[in-house]
């Protein structure tokens, strides 16, 4: 089972929400997960409805115990039902670099001098790939970190990663840096990070909607990741909606059922079914909406088939009509968990 889950997806598909739900879903039975963000957007804080996160790992949520089972989860501790924990970290490239310098080179004052000189700014914003090495490096460090008993500090690390269009370059940047810096500490660090990212310990998941562009990007993203030798995990289909009617139903409606529908609407208390009656006048706009819906349902079925053809495990999350609040997030986590290990 993977321990580093990288969650990517086209912009607007809800990857931050899915990453947060996944971190919650993985934190059952006393497990502890770390949710990291790398783009400085404070998306995690917004999803969990807390104030902005500092560059510091902190507990952000307690995951409920396993659904239904009140006891018997003896995997860890054996003490009956235990809640899991989600910790969160907003990785800041500049701070990560200073930490890194401090850790490996004890560069107290030289580090500050470099910062004053603009070198840190250069390294984290302009120098090719350095920023990404630092961000992925920090996540990999958390994956490998062990406590004094030799047990992993985090059972899983979930990364809210850059969008699909940039994910392969973001993760593969260590290769690129390793090629650029052919030896030396940056080279070694990049190699170490790349080993974790390309190992079966890592899984890159892509979030999509059942729409043409995100599905196309998902297919392209999977191909790119595979070509780069990065382990692809699953596809999360987000914001699915139940199909109420399809075009077949509508054909029936258009052909024969108009009068019947008018009568049914009228029967349900929505006015007269005769020509010009309130119920009768509702039919055209309602049918128009139904036509749009049916068109979308057909389109979604086609997109679903394309996703299935990619041949990866898929997970589906329903659209929450009122948007995702904290309760909604827990619900998504539960839905993910029900769909088996991710």
């Amino acid at each position: 089972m993977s321990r580093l889950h990288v969650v990517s997806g086209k912009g607007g598909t809800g990857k931050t929400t899915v990453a947060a739900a996944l971190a919650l879903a993985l934190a059952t039975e006393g497990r502890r997960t770390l949710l990291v963000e790398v783009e400085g957007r404070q998306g995690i804080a917004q999803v969990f409805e807390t104030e902005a996160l500092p560059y510091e790992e902190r507990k952000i949520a307690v995951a409920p115990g396993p659904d239904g089972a009140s006891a018997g989860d003896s995997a860890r501790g054996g003490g009956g039902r235990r809640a899991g924990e989600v910790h969160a970290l907003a990785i800041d490239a500049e701070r990560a670099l200073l930490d890194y310098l401090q850790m490996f080179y004890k560069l107290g004052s030289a580090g500050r001098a470099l910062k004053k000189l603009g070198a840190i700014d250069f390294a984290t914003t302009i120098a090719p790939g350095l920023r990404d090495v630092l961000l992925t490096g920090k996540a990999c460090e958390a994956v490998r970190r062990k406590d004094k008993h030799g047990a992993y500090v985090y059972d899983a690390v979930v990364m809210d990663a850059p969008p699909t269009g940039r994910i392969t370059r973001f993760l593969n940047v260590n290769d690129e840096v390793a090629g650029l810096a052919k030896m030396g500490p940056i080279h070694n660090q990049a190699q170490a990070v790349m080993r974790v990212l390309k190992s079966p310990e890592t899984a890159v998941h892509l979030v999509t909607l059942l729409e043409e562009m995100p599905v196309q990007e998902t297919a392209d993203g999977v191909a790119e990741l595979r070509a780069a030798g990065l382990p692809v995990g699953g596809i999360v289909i987000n914001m699915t909606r139940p199909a109420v009617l399809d075009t077949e139903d509508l054909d029936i409606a258009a052909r024969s059922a108009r009068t019947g529908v008018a009568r049914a609407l009228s029967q349900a208390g929505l006015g007269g079914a005769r020509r010009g009656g309130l119920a009768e006048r509702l039919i055209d706009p309602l049918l128009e909406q139904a036509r749009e819906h049916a068109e979308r349902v057909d389109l979604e079925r086609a997109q679903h088939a394309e996703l299935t053809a990619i041949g990866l495990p898929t997970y589906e999350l329903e659209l929450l009509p009122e948007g995702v609040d904290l309760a909604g997030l827990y619900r998504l986590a539960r839905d993910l968990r029900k769909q088996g290990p991710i």
Partner: protein
Amino acid sequence: MTADDTTLNASAPWLEVDALIDDPRTRIVVCCGSGGVGKTTTAAALGVRAAERGRKAVVLTIDPARRLAQSMGISELDNVPRQVKGVDDAAGGELHAMMLDMKRTFDEIVEGHADAERARAILENPFYQSLSAGFAGTQEYMAMEKLGQLRARDEWDLIIVDTPPSRSALDFLDAPKRLGSFLDGKFIRVLMAPAKVGGRAGMKFLNVGMSMMTGTLSKLMGGQLLRDVQMFVAAMDTMFGGFRTRADATYRLLQAPGTAFLVVAAPERDALREAAYFVERLAAEQMPLAGLVLNRVHGSGASQLSAERALAAAETLTEHAAEEAETAAEERAAAQESEAGTRPDPAPSPAAGPVAEAAENLERNGIMDHDGGKNGSRTVGGLSPAAPAAHPAPPTASAAQLATGLLRLHAERMQVLARERRTRDRFTALHPEVPVTEVAALPGDVHDLTGLRAIGARLALDPADGDMAPPQP
């Protein structure tokens, strides 16, 4: 709830898109916003509309969806604007489009600013090759660079720019400045020092402080990378002034009165939050904001029927259907019993399955207003079963089921509408001064000129004229 509710709030002024793109003083339109809100489609639709209204327009797209690019004939990444075929030129306009190739744009700057030998040294430098292939900020910088180039060519009277799918919509504003400040910075001078005094061998002639610094850098980066960076910086030395000047010029261009920013968003919390940041940032930078384009807004032709009432009516129908199915089953059972005299058939009528499912779905939506349904039934006028049917009357169960489906869909639509309105109102409350235009949601994606034309028409649709009415060709 009235039909007026689906139109714009009186408090949000309407963004008159046609007035904006028809005005010859408008020379640049920048479409910005967070990812996935339809920036590229909006930019392309504006381009088509402007061209067909007589402007000589060019659209600079960054990362268009494949089929959209194909529809405009710009699937080739050659960094040169191409005329878009199929655009109506009756009004004397034309449309060109191009897709940004950032590496090529960067290469062109180098080639344009350095002599051949120096240019080659830069282009072959491994550090440059990674930098130009698209790391943090390069795409944003190159988009702005290309905008400057297109403007300088003065071949078009309207340039419409899409912005890169950045981690933050604000990145492209910062990129030129960031690159500029880096190139002007002290760090560059430190890096440059050894190269200036004689390349690799020059290190040892540096003063102690400087050598300690470069020593540290060398330890961190590895000697070879540091040398690549130094050579790169040295080779670029003569171009720095040029870079800075260009970054400044682009920045001023964005502030110029001929520029109009359009913030694009979808009626969702995150997208509108980003839009609000952007509005504030543009004001702080004194950049001219034309307004907000709110994409994928849902409307309803039956907004007089509330979600609650629709659900209650659906539930009434479901109850009826269940009762009828039960009666039918009983009757059938009775009939069978009298015929065969033995085994009653417990199977439900064919309608019971879907109906039960519908009832369950209703419960999940959680809004049931029994009173509403009953109050409504007092006003019933056309319950007569003798209503003339032009077609053979369908089985009642299927018509009722269909009606239930229609009502449930409508309730869902009205809930979406309400949520979108709340989100939009929050933005309008924060920024009542920002003009807004709303673009009705389409069921599918747009990937041809006809689709872009339809979007353009929706962009320009006066909310007072036709509330969500389909655009006339």
